[in-house]
């Protein structure tokens, strides 16, 4: 869109690029430490990045999973209580841009939610969603966003899930989890255990494939389903 350019301020690049450059640093240094050919790896990465900036619409074939964000530790009485109760079942307490989140191990995730609801006043499950990182050992991250009406606090509970693993459904704690978890199943193929109705919600029941996985192409669709049910050839 050409109108996007017009009033863009002069000194545009300075803050922004510096910030993203800084965020990249730990990733690169880690890559350098791990890889056997650090210089080559770096050289390969640089041109890829610049070409991407030039042609933003074109997606690189395989996107790298985010290596890590510049988080700060999250401390407070709630964190202390959770640490005391769950010990090393919770592996991380962090904040980023004011958002607080914790990472729990999969078997403990349900117990953490249960505790947060029953004893810490997190009475409102805002959202359940997932992110797919194909390069990671456990490729999925399931995220519950919780809010506490009495304390006006919002936190995220995250857990890593491997292909085929089933996190326990939060449906028995929050009725809102019912549809939200079905959507996660629909889009990512993560089946929640003990969910009363683990079926697709937005896509047709017979649909094959999980669209929000990274290996699912943007124009990909279940062509057989389209042919059979809509009597048309896929337009793409």
């Amino acid at each position: 869109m050409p109108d996007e350019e017009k009033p863009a301020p002069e000194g545009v690049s300075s803050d922004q690029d510096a910030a993203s450059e800084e965020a990249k640093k730990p990733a690169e240094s880690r890559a350098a430490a791990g890889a056997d050919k650090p210089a080559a790896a770096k050289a390969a990465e640089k041109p890829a990045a610049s070409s991407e900036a030039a042609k933003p619409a074109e997606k690189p074939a395989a996107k790298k999973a985010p290596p890590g964000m510049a988080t700060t530790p999250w401390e407070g009485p709630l964190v202390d209580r959770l640490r005391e109760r769950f010990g090393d079942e919770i592996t991380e307490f962090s904040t980023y841009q004011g958002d607080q989140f914790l990472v729990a191990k999969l078997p403990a995730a349900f117990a953490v939610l249960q505790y947060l609801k029953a004893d810490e006043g997190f009475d409102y499950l805002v959202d359940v969603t997932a992110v797919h990182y194909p390069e990671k050992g456990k490729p999925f991250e399931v995220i519950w966003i919780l809010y506490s009406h009495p304390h006006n606090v919002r936190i995220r509970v995250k857990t890593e899930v491997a292909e085929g693993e089933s996190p326990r459904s939060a449906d028995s704690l929050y009725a809102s989890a019912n549809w939200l978890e079905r959507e996660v199943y629909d889009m990512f193929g993560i089946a929640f255990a003990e969910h009363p109705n683990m079926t697709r919600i937005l896509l047709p029941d017979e649909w094959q494939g999980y669209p929000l996985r990274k290996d699912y192409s943007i124009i990909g669709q279940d062509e057989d389903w389209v042919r059979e049910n809509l009597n048309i050839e896929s337009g793409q």
Partner: protein
Amino acid sequence: MAEATFLDTNELVLNMGPQHPSTHGVLRVILKLDGEKVLGTECVIGYLHRGVEKIAENRTYTMFNPYVDRMDYVAAVSNGLGYCLAAEKLGGIEVPERAQVVRVILTELNRISSHLLWLGTHALDIGAITPVFYCFREREEVLKIFEKYCGARLTTHAFRIGGLQYETYDTFEQDCLKFCDWFLPKVDEYEELLTTNRIWVARTKGVGILNIEDCKHYGVSGPVIRAAGLEWDLRKAQPYSGYEGYEFDIPTGQAGDTYDRYIVRMQEMRQSVRIIRQGVEKLPSGPIKGKVAKVFKPPIGEVYQSIEAPKGELGYFMVSDGSTQPYRLRVRPPSFVNLCALDRMCRGSLVADVVAIIGTIDIVLGEVDR
């Protein structure tokens, strides 16, 4: 199982929709009935699914901005505000004050137009035909302001990451104030038509009750939870875009029924007028766009940002991998989550009430299905 009636009728399964005038789009509700009584419902959704979240992963942040208008298309400005706030949080961008105030004014105008559309169609569903003409007459004036500001009436794409694209037009302030003065008596007019109307009261009082505990359990937000009596509004609880600098009340109900939700929304329109007036009064001069790189490239990270949209809590969960495109963008749609409580609200009521209850949740299927 239902108790046997004197006719000993069997359970009847009735399909309502997807093409049905009172489902506000393409919502299919499967009703399990015992005579006129609803034993249970099941929603079938997804007819309007366009894969918005997938599209986001394949567009740059800037390119995706207009897409959000197509979710809740009667409150496109609110969608855009939520999206821009999330992207700004992710990129650490500060928005100049003038842009913030203009955003608030337009968003509140949008809240009024969204509520007007809801009121008109909801009354129409229940059988009051007159209000819809009045509502559309007033809504037209809001859309005219949008059109003068950005050239579009419905899918406005009014905001950009970092601020605004357009400076306000010459008579923007006067138009807003004129609208406020002219609009307030109109709200009284609607209330005269409906609030004490015996048919309206009979059709809405005690219908589709959802108490606070149920609201929390089902994750319901917005006017529906306020009608149940919880004074909770994200504009006050977790202010954004400078809402902490405005004086307004949070209207609440008590019974949590269809009638209270109607009253709450009527009051909200009056409160929006208050906010618009304050916004116009304090509209400062200055730049309308913060410092944003031409190629917007937020650092690696993830944020969740939500706003009080006309229908409830609208949230965006954004994950950045440091490139120009979102690695993952999740939209937390208020309509989708609120619709989940439909079954709870319908059980035990009459078939005719289902129409009233679908209307009172105020859903837009474009947002439910995304």
